[in-house]
């Protein structure tokens, strides 16, 4: 759990050389295409294309891949099974199509997170897309605290045991205890966040002076190629689907 939440500088991988906003653009294009097509061919082609990018994101080892994607695969499987079993015209094909859609929608996010340094992402968003700095860097600072929250949960649970408070086997007591821990966690998180906000303010954050950026964020020709490539792959997926007679866009219905 902590491994996937840990936000160190991202490892130097090939996909990391693509500017985050180019990756986000491709992600949006793929999302739109997937959300509007209900067949099985389009998501199959797109998922295949996304899978070829895994090594470029440093996810070639099955262990690393599994750790990041098992909740996603479980979700996709359940979507597929439920839709196969419960739909009015049960069909394995449409169930598989929906399952593949879930994977196809989520994988670009997995690729982005695995290959992109969060700081570079915030830089790119504020410089190219003019996302407010308060939002981008505030979120960045908050993300750094996420792993601490996991450790704190454990420590509050143990602290309650030392005071003689424990749920045992009683499910009602368990719910009440979880509620209490959740509240203590929330109080702790708010206090830590306000200390962090104070520290950021003390260093002049969001003080009204136009912010500069020490690292910058440059767009290269390869970023345009990457976005164009995603358009080509999407077109190919839809084209193949039409050729095979499987094309079923959402708005035609």
């Amino acid at each position, binding site marked *: 759990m902590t491994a996937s939440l840990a936000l160190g*500088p991202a490892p130097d991988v090939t996909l990391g050389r693509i500017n985050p906003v180019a990756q986000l653009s491709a992600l949006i294009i793929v999302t739109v295409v997937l959300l509007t097509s209900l067949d099985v061919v389009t998501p199959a082609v797109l998922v295949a294309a996304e899978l070829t990018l895994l090594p470029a994101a440093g996810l070639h080892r099955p262990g690393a891949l599994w750790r990041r994607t098992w909740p996603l695969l479980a979700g996709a499987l359940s979507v597929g099974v439920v839709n196969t079993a419960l739909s009015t015209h049960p069909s394995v094909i449409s169930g598989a199509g929906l399952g593949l859609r879930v994977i196809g929608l989520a994988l670009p996010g997995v690729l982005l997170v695995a290959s992109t*340094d969060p700081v570079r992402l915030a830089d790119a968003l504020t410089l190219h897309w003019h996302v407010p700095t308060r939002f981008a860097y505030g979120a*960045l600072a908050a993300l750094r605290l996420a792993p601490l929250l996991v450790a704190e949960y454990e420590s509050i649970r143990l*602290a309650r045991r*030392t005071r*003689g408070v424990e749920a045992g086997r009683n499910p009602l007591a368990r719910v009440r205890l979880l509620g209490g821990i959740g509240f203590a966690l929330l109080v702790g998180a708010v206090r830590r966040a306000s200390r962090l906000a*104070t520290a*950021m303010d003390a*260093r002049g954050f969001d003080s009204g002076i136009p912010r500069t*950026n020490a690292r910058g964020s440059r767009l290269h020709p390869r970023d345009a190629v990457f976005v164009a490539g995603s358009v080509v792959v999407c077109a190919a997926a839809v084209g193949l689907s039409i050729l095979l007679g499987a094309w079923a866009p959402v708005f035609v219905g």
Partner: protein
Amino acid sequence: MTSPGPTAAAALRAGTPVRVVARGLGVRHASRRAWALQGIDLVVEPGERVLVTGGSGAGKSTLLAALAGILDPEGVEVIGELTVGGRPPRQARGQVGLLAQDPDSQLVMTRAGDDVAFGLENGGVPAEHIWPRVDQALAAVGFRYGRDRSTQALSGGEKQRLVLAGVLVRRPGLLLLDEPTAQLDRPGAELVRSAVARTTADRNTTVVVVDHDAGPWLPLVDRVVELTPEGITELGAGWTPARRAAGLRLPDAPGGPKLLAAEAAGFAYRGTTTAALGATDLTLSGGRALAVTGPNGTGKSTLALLLAGLRAPTIGRIEAADELAAGARGGRRPDRWRAGDLVGRIGTVFQNPEQQFLTGRLRDELALGPLRSGSHATAAHATAEELLERLGLTAYADANPYTLSGGQQRRLSVATALATSPRVLVLDEPTFGQDAQTWRELVTLLAERRAAGCAVVVVTHDADLVSALADEQHELQPVGSAP
């Protein structure tokens, strides 16, 4: 050492030390009747370095927040006058740098260099001037790693030095240090103090340090003032803090039976290859006090969790003697006991006291443990009142534990562990944040428990505590890989 290029200096106004003036300053928190600060008269000349010390709960943190201009205007009442560089603190915030206790809630970025650059970016310094200044600041605090070093891979002392670089790079006219070494071990604290000494030697900033532990700062400051409930007192040249252990007479304790033992017990978190605690052998006996010491990261707190029955060792065993285990369901392994059985047998104080508080009033907080372990309500409340009195907390009996100062919270958490009269006491840094008087009261209380047949374990960096109380010392060494 920090001579600016003309453009950079113009881009971020600072670099000249400011004067701080307080006249008749008083601050009261909205939820309290008593003033947190009262009658404060203080002038700090530009470039001067002043240490503000004072007892637990004397208002040190409140004074610092007032100087930094971060008092919540709706939550406090302020009287008198306070100016920083001739302006109200709130308007002078751009000239003030603040270094607080907890490095983890001050770092923003994932890389060391980016974090130092953060304050310059906020100030609108052109990108081409940022990196030279970042490198200069990192060199000035003695940061040994490059700009690309991950902030998560640093020790507490190194993180705190990095935060200091990020504060100084903005060239504040006033540098405020709020117990910046409180969460560090001795080498880490030394790193931070030497960085402060190096960076402020040229007097280009006024410095106000707030710390209850005055001694280590004395070589660094020009003068010392003490906060008291009545106001502020100038302590003359040559002042040294009273030795808190001087003349302390603790009751003797007859040796008792063996209560709890660790046999080659160690711990590794799931999915990690390095052990948090290497195999450790220990015996806790009634009437004996054991001090566990060692640098940060050697597993001191982990050992406390194992002895307290909060975690099961991943190697070796923790076993209670029959004397302690009698009547507890779950046999001789404390981690298998029910919480209700544990609380009357092993009392524990965590490093962060807030995590242990469960009620909205100090009085209820102290009565809770005895009630949980089956005491009668009258007896439980009598115990609570006695402990409040002993630890100087009676005035706050109806206050919410979260509103206490750090040192008071620590005393309260120690009191909650004592309230159930357990046979074993496991305390993680129990004396943290205490002034001389409360320190003596705490140590005496622990010694009394020892005399009554308790086994006391303290995990601590406090050398005075070790020499005053400990019968034995177990020093943990850095661990290698898990077997």
